[in-house]
């Protein structure tokens, strides 16, 4: 019964997302929505590793960066189609996942966080300093757009729908994985890792899968980002951005798709809506987020759930 209600919720959300740019068609907002959608994909991915498996991943910006640069450089330097680049990007995500996942089953807590930070910083600095190869600090320009059935996805609204399709696809994949034995295994690792091994499960394997999912999602998001904005630059992919992604799933509610969506929407749009505060908008934003963490440590979703139970 409640499961069907949940399904209706998703259908409604998709319908709302489809209608949104028709109602609010201003480029400013649509651009913001596009970026939010990209962030949602990343949040979906991060949800596996940080939200469900409970491993602190502060390297998402590095994943995002590699995805974006791979796609951008492939399509600008060799003029292959973004679609083929996308397949390569998925492969890259796979490699990072295994590469980052490998340390993750030996490392714990702070040691893992640092490894992910170090990875992301190394990637960012390489992208910034390998001038000949990546264009260095001047970034990569004129990244061609995706084409669908011969149509170029150029305008912001087209991009919106294009990315939305990916969000729906990845949302569906996430939903399935979360409500399967994999999802249960992720949570089991967070709850009690010793007991997972006695269930005959190779915990290293599960952690690597969680990392790989996160990095494939992150890389694909990176690829979409590169073609959507047509210009990328290493200064975007900072540690701060990694932190922002974690804040997203934390604010929304960890281990929950709605939480990811809500978190991404809030974190990427709130500062924009606070712009009217002028100089004080970043300060206000930080304070609001801090208050959220203090008063809703389970995320906004936990409060929603509590209210529902009260009724």
């Amino acid at each position, binding site marked *: 019964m409640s499961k069907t209600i949940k399904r209706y919720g998703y259908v409604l959300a998709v319908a709302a997302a489809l209608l949104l740019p028709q109602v*609010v068609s201003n*480029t400013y907002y649509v651009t913001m929505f596009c970026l939010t959608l990209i962030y949602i994909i990343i949040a979906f991915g991060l949800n596996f590793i940080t939200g469900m498996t409970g491993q602190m991943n502060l390297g998402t910006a590095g994943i995002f960066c590699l995805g974006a640069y791979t796609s951008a450089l492939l399509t600008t330097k060799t003029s292959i189609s973004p679609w083929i680049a996308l397949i390569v990007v998925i492969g890259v995500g796979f490699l990072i996942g295994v590469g980052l996942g490998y340390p993750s089953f030996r490392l714990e807590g702070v040691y893992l966080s640092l490894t992910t930070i170090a990875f992301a910083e190394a990637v960012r*600095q390489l992208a*910034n300093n390998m001038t000949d190869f990546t264009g260095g*600090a001047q970034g990569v*320009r004129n990244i061609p757009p995706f084409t669908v059935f011969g149509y170029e996805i150029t305008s912001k609204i087209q991009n919106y729908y294009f990315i939305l399709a990916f969000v729906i696809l990845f949302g569906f994949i996430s939903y399935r994985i979360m409500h399967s034995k994999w999802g249960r295994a992720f949570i089991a690792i967070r709850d009690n890792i010793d007991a997972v091994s006695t269930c005959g499960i190779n915990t290293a394997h599960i952690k690597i899968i969680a990392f790989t999912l996160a990095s494939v999602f992150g890389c694909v998001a990176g690829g979409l980002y590169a073609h959507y904005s047509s210009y990328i630059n290493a200064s975007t992919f900072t540690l701060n951005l990694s932190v922002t992604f974690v804040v997203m799933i934390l604010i929304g509610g960890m281990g929950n798709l709605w939480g990811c969506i809500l978190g991404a929407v809030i974190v990427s749009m709130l500062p*924009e809506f606070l*712009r009217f505060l002028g100089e004080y908008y970043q300060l206000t934003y930080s304070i609001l987020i801090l208050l959220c963490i203090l008063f809703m440590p389970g995320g906004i979703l936990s409060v929603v759930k509590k209210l529902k139970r009260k009724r």
Partner: protein
Amino acid sequence: GGGQDNAGGTSAQNVENSGETEKTEAAAESGDPIKIGVMATLTGYPLNGEHMRNGVLMAIDEINENGGVLGRQLEADVQDCSNTTDVAINATNKLISEGVVGIIGPHYSSQGLAIESIIKEAQVPMLVGGTSPKFVNECDNDFLFRIRASDDLQAAAAAAYLVDEYGVTKVAILHGSDDFGTGGMQVAAKYFDSVGVEYCAQSFNNEDTDVTSQILKCINENCDGVMIWATEAAYPIVARQMSELGLQAPTITNPSLAVDSCLAQMEPSWVEGWYCVTDFLTNNTNQEVQDFIAAYQAEYGAEESVDLHCAAYYSAVYALADGIERAGSTNGEDVAKALRETKDVPGLVGDFNCNEDGEMIHEIILGQCKDLQIEYIDVIQ
């Protein structure tokens, strides 16, 4: 916001820009103020948006007091671009959605590159201060203008001065690894190659707190001239370590050294006798410059330092106002066309003369540091 305005009537095809055009045209009739967008780095790092904003606001006040433009008042719409690409994109879109006639800023080329295509599409002229050579020249964009001398000019002039004046044989180029530093280094390198002078380029990241190995490499290579191209934040560290480790040779820098707050962090001995190329000097005897400084300090406080950020964007407003006036309308395309024909508009960083690339400034000042003051030496055209 602009979203609600066109929610009702407009059909799906012209949703992109119709909102804004409608609005500006409506505004023209009613004689509302003309909005000018300002993209300033107010949060994030490096910070310099405040001076930029102050300069712009001052210019707008002055123009408004003198009757405004096209008989209408000017109004600034300042948005933070936080020095990150995504925020800059959002800020640009926001400005456009609010119907600005032109945009002043951003100060950094990388952000300019990120938003260049947006303003092109929206047909809003943008007057940037980013000096990266790649930027304006390579972008095929009729709405992009640069109100500071390009690094093509600045770095080449700096390199040439070292060679001509001191006859150096091997130059150490210490540059930041950001687009600004790298861009400058590339221009200089090209020049040194062309005149057959050797060079040793060493870069550092903006966050670095130690550049020992870079400086030691230069000493090791027996460099007899030094050129530094970096943002303000790097100077105190580089200058201190150069003096500590003993890299002493004729040195020339980019305009950052001439910024008061940068000099304020140095010991005199570190930078004595250094040269710098710059767009703006407070020691310039030029009357307009002195008037500006007096006016600025009257407005914002006597202890406020005046630097090129205030001056360049102050002048930029005049250039834009001149363009709008000559265009006779607030239509983006017309204004851009008028701006392209800018001729001899006086400015504090040189006179504005637009060429076909959108470059508006073609002169720079050469200064030398004496006891933490930059003294005016020459103007290079």
